[in-house]
C-alpha cells in the first residue's frame, strides 16, 4: 500500500482527508483511483483535455516523479506519494 498525501487546498474535495492508503501499481493509477474515490477532485487535478494541470506536482518519497518515470513510476509498499501544487500567478500575461 502507498500512502497518498493530499495538500490542504484539495482536502475539502476529498472529504477532509489529508492522507489515505491506496493500492496501485504506479503513480498514474494511484491518482486515477483517488479521483474515482473523490470525483470532485478531478476538475482541479486534470484539464478538460485529461492532462494534469500545470500546477500539479507529484512527489514520490520526496522526489519529483518528472525525474523518475512520470506517471508510469512504479509504486511499492510503504511508498509515500504527495500531491504538492506550485502556487503561482501574476498580474497579466508576459509581454
Amino acid at each position, binding site marked *: 500500500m502507498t500512502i497518498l498525501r493530499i*495538500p*490542504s*487546498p*484539495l*482536502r*475539502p*474535495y476529498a472529504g477532509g482527508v489529508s492522507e489515505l492508503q491506496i493500492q496501485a501499481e504506479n503513480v498514474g493509477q494511484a491518482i486515477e483511483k483517488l479521483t474515482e474515490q473523490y470525483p*470532485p477532485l478531478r*476538475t*482541479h487535478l486534470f484539464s478538460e483535455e485529461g492532462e494534469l494541470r*500545470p*500546477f500539479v*506536482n507529484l*512527489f514520490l518519497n520526496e522526489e519529483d516523479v518528472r525525474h523518475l518515470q512520470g506517471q508510469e513510476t512504479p509504486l511499492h509498499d510503504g511508498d509515500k506519494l*504527495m500531491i*504538492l*501544487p*506550485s*502556487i*503561482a*500567478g*501574476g*498580474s*497579466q*500575461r*508576459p509581454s
Partner: protein
Amino acid sequence: MNIYLPKDLMDKIHDHGEGTYPEEGAGLLLGRDEDENRVVVDVLPLPNNREDSARHNRYVITPQHLFEGEKQAEARGLDVIGVFHSHPDHPNRPSEFDRTWAVPWFSYIITSVEKGQAVDSRSWRLADDRQKFNEERIVIMETVSR
C-alpha cells in the same frame, strides 16, 4: 463569505508588497475556517521563485515551500488557507493567469502596489468550476495576531 484579518497582518502583507516592489511579492496565509468565515492567524512571506526577468508580473511559491508551510501550520493546529501576492502598478483583481494557476479553496489576497506604495487589498476564491473568482470581504480586526 468573509475573511478576518488582524490589522498587523494586513500591514505585514502590505509591507512585503512594498519591499518587493517593483517585483511581485507573495506568501502563505495560515489560519482556520470558523463556520462560513475564514480567520487568518499568521502570514508567511516567501521568496518569489520566478526567474528575475518575470518577477515584475509573475510569482511562484515552490511546492517545497508550500509543504514547509503546511508543516508549520499543522504544528500550530492551523491550515494553510491561502496565498497573498502583490500586483505592482496593477489592479488587485485576479488575472487570467491567476485563474489558470489557482488552486481551489484557497483565499487569494491581492494587493495593488502603486509606485512602491500599497494601496488596497482584495480577497478572492476560485469557483468550483474554475471559471471565475468570487470575491470575499476582508474584515480587518483591530486585535493583534498571536
